[in-house]
């Protein structure tokens, strides 16, 4: 169902990305291409730099150096000034982000959360935004809660609303930063199912996750990060059966032992 990917040009292109936190070198000369409609999972131990890499793509973290390109918008990391801010803004319009802690706006209803971006940032007509929002809320199965406030929702429901909020900005790429890590185990499934659906609808996705099952089942590619570098980049089938790096093997062994 996802053949033809290889032929397409990359929609996300990261070149020679470096990121320092003070003296700490957290991302080391990372280069990565993601093609349109591709689902890429980033796995790795905590502190390996996978979340930072994701957050550099939409400049929640400013890269120390390197180039980020999303759907033709090319931004030099480490630059400043008005032109730079304009480009960063354009990149943010092309990327949707889903956070570990959901980060729904607590003072707004579910529907208000979802239309906030399109109306305020894109200046979309409110009626149009509402119909688009309702469509997306429906597809994540949350339309029936559209007038509720986030406090009244379970973690899984919050995260599904957060996904609808990101989708309603009509991004080209979705970034998921450990979307199920803050959830009770019994709520993880509903969020993963929504993510599978988003993938099936053809969205380009980068997913930082500890959910090996999801990576194996849904990802087109799995990147393993360790010590600020991409230590392995393979199809899930290859990676899970013949891991090359010992660190990858350790990760997979731990997942296998948890499975039993």
């Amino acid at each position, binding site marked *: 169902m996802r053949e033809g990917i290889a032929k397409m040009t990359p929609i996300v292109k990261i070149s020679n990305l470096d990121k320092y936190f003070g003296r700490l070198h957290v991302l080391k000369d990372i280069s990565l291409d993601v093609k349109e409609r591709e689902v890429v999972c980033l796995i790795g131990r905590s502190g390996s730099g996978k979340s930072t890499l994701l957050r550099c793509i*939409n400049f*929640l973290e400013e890269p120390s150096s390197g180039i980020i390109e999303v759907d033709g918008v090319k931004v030099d990391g480490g630059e400043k000034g008005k032109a730079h801010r304009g480009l960063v*803004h354009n990149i*943010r*319009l092309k*990327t*949707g*982000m889903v*956070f570990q*802690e959901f*980060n*729904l*706006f*607590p*003072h707004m209803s579910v529907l208000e959360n979802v239309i*906030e*971006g399109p109306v*305020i*940032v*894109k200046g979309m007509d409110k009626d149009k935004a509402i119909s688009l929002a309702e469509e997306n809320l429906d597809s994540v199965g949350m339309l029936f809660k559209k007038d509720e*406030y*986030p*406090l*009244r929702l379970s973690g899984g429901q919050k995260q599904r609303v*957060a996904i609808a*909020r*990101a989708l309603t*900005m009509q991004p080209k790429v979705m970034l998921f930063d450990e979307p199920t890590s803050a959830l009770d185990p019994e709520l993880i499934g509903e969020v993963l199912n929504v993510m599978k659906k988003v993938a099936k609808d053809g969205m380009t996705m980068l997913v930082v996750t500890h959910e090996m099952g999801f990576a194996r089942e849904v990802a087109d590619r799995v990147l393993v990060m360790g010590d600020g570098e991409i230590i392995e980049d393979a199809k899930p089938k290859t990676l899970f059966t013949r891991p090359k790096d010992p660190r990858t093997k350790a990760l997979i062994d731990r997942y296998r032992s948890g499975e039993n």
Partner: protein
Amino acid sequence: MNQAGTSQAELLYEAQQRKVRQFRNNVVITWIVLLGLLIFLFSGPIQIDTDFIRRNTLFIASGIGETLNISVLSIVLAIILALLAALGRLSTIPPVYAVSTFYVSLIRGTPLFLQIFFFFLALPQLGIVLPGLIAGVLALGLNYGAYMSETFRAGIASVSKGQREAAIAIGMTPTQTMRRIVLPQALRFAIPPMGNDFISMTKDSALVSATGFVHDVMWRATRVGRAEFNSLEALIIAAVFYWMMTLILTTFQNRMEARLARGDR
């Protein structure tokens, strides 16, 4: 053996409720006794001039409007100044940060009483003569603004980093993020302390009367008290009015807080 339908837990719960009720009843009774004692003291052992009270209560009461007027205007000014000062304090532009901290430091470093006299007595020397009410509102507003800026700053700080990141991620500018995401949540956090400040303001507004230009409850009480050498009675009347205002405002505030807590999402 328990009665049918009454579990151990229910019995424990009821015992606990009984204790709570008993405590509350005892508090109310003691309040009433203390109040009665106070009334008794002034009706027997301490001679007070009831005729004076009858003649002047209305005169003093008619200052309530002015007291509330000055308090409301001052709190509005204070909120605006506090918001600006709090935002200035968070600014990365040095002069803006400096102006904000300078204002807060200067105001908090000098007595409110001095600030009030500054507007009434010092400014006229420079040829600036403000109407009594305006001068009072400026002094109180500036003073409370400096203190309330800390409340707002705490409110803004209470909004999690994730909220800002979510706003930034959907492409909001820093101004949009502040106005639409951070401030609404910060203000909700700041409403209860703001209520407290308003209640303090109604009492601190009495200081303005010392200048003689604002005819509030306190000014009226001291005026008739001094004129007839009945300050005891005059101040008792004023105290009762201030106390009643405080009680009413506190009730309102408690109700508002309860509603906020319920809607806290």
